[in-house]
């Protein structure tokens, strides 16, 4: 079914000082009209473990959807993950969006003593993992003999509430993983190219320029074929800043990331300007990239609410 391209918004919550603060954040996100609460998955710098935190958020809300943004596939076996994800979908009454990526942050692998294979191997493993997850979510026993995982006649339980399975959100910034996303996922996370293993690298920043984002969407479109219209296009907006003077901020960003000021403002991961300018930027991005699903950092959640109120479900 073609996606309606209506706007919706998520909020990214990587940390909490207390149970009270986290639960209040989840309730407030729901009250403000956010569609989804996301928690990232890293061993370093992001202090909440996603799946228990999402179970908590779902338990204190009624409509809010919840998702990891995104699980690093290498950190858990897909048989373990399938059960955890299905349990979360069951206990939240069908509110999970299953974000999954190949794993990229070098520090995660180093700290935990895991081998960080080449991008090709990690993405091949992610592809197998998606097959395993879908197989275990489906009815009846599932068998799979892959390069990385072997499953023998396993009937995954519990089954998720959403059928045939919770929406898969697959994110990445390189053609290979975006192609995989286009073929397998319902929601495509269009992100920086993180091949360097660091989020704050100039390579990652350059990969966010508007022209490069055009290329990413072309890769998604190529891989999806006729099915492209069914896909929801999402991005994580890392930087939201309300100001009457966007051009000054653009100059600073441009210097910091080594891109032109115009590219800094038009990149899908920044939202800088007045409310009206932000609305215009988001409309432009939807027209250019079909990007209708934007994830806002926790710090900007309240201030961004008026923009959300004007755009959500339009």
């Amino acid at each position, binding site marked *: 079914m073609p996606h309606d391209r209506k706007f919706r918004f998520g909020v990214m919550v990587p*940390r*909490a000082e*207390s*149970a009270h603060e*986290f*639960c209040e954040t989840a309730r407030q996100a729901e009250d403000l009209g956010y569609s989804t609460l996301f928690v990232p998955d890293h*061993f*370093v*710098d*992001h*202090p*909440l*473990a996603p*799946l*228990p*935190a*999402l*179970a*908590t958020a*779902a*338990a*204190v809300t009624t409509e809010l959807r919840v998702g990891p943004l995104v699980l690093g596939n290498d*950190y*858990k*076996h897909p*048989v*373990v993950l399938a*059960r*955890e994800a*299905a*349990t*979360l979908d*069951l*206990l*939240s*009454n069908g509110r999970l969006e299953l974000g999954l990526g190949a794993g990229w942050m070098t520090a995660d692998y*180093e*700290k*935990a*003593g*895991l081998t960080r294979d080449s991008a090709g191997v990690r993405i091949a493993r992610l592809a197998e993992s998606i097959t395993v997850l879908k197989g275990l979510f489906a009815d009846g026993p599932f068998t799979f003999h892959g390069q990385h*995982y*072997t*499953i*023998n006649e*396993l009937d995954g*339980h*519990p089954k998720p*509430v959403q059928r045939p399975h919770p929406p898969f959100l697959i994110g990445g910034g390189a053609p290979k993983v975006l192609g995989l996303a286009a073929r397998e996922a319902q929601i495509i996370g269009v992100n920086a190219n993180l091949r360097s293993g660091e989020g704050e690298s100039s390579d990652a920043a350059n990969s966010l320029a508007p022209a490069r984002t055009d290329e990413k969407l072309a890769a998604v479109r190529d891989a999806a074929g006729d099915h492209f219209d069914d896909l929801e296009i999402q991005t994580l907006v890392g930087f939201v800043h309300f100001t009457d003077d966007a051009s000054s901020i653009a100059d600073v960003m441009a210097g910091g990331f080594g891109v032109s000021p115009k590219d800094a403002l038009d990149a899908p991961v920044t939202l800088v300007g007045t409310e009206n300018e932000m609305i215009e930027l988001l409309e432009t991005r939807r027209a250019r990239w079909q990007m209708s699903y934007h994830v806002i950092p926790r710090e900007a959640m309240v201030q961004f609410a008026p923009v959300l109120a004007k755009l959500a479900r339009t």
Partner: protein
Amino acid sequence: MAKPFRFGVQCGPVASGSEFGARVRAIEASGYSTLFVPDHFIDQQLSPMVALAAAAEATTTLRVGTLVLGNDYRHPAAVAKEAATIDLLSDGRIELGIGAGWMTSDYDALDLVYDSPGTRIARLAEAIAVIKGCWSPGAFSFSGEHYTIAAYDATPKPVQEPHPPVLVGGGGRKVLSLAGREADIAGINPNLRAGALTADAVQSSLADLTAQKIEWVREAAGERFDEIELQIRYFLTAVTDDRRGLAEALAPAYGLTADEALESGVALVGTVDEICDQLVQRRDEWGVSYVIIGDDNVEAFAPVVARLAGT
């Protein structure tokens, strides 16, 4: 010195989130201390860490625990982070149960190598060191046979000081010695070397063998033995007027006499009075004060809980 009684319930499958919420609230209302969720890849069981987080939000004082995580199924750094997250978001209510992994069907499901008990227990020992290291203040490094951790300052840190209670369960000498050295709660279980709850496993829970298991914990624990809470998960439980009749019906399947079954460390059968007397007697003899039953008996055992919990 005898510890106060407390009671826990091991949760079985549920059909929906609302059923789960209602069940855990009923468990809390009946005076149980703790909801436990197992960790296996067969049948309809919930995944423990997700279920515990949901249970904690549906309740206010109920503690939540794993009974027990199979260590081989996840990386200990991931376990430490998830447990600390639950501890933070539940205001300090998690008890982290972890064992070496034993059920062969789990290893088949995950296509994992089922190593010898010695290897699995050595890996569990390393995992406990990693988990405690992750929970401690500051950066932690570990260079073991099975895990390597490189100057990792894990977050969040748990709320409970110095860390959430670690529950190590098992039925063999090696794992119970590990419990004696490292655990806050020692689970005295059948010996599951066969990989399933066989007659052999149940026979390993005869009264004198249960006493032997507790002795293994004591020897390894040394002076800290008095700080360890001893726990039994009773698999054969019934509130009944016909204690003997039930035992006579059930015992032969496990190759036991009725008396052997009734006195064993897996059975808790009788009237409320008989069960209470038996629990007091076992606490006197064995020191076992933490009593776990299945969730089909929550209501039937509520009078036992009402009489003994906290005493």
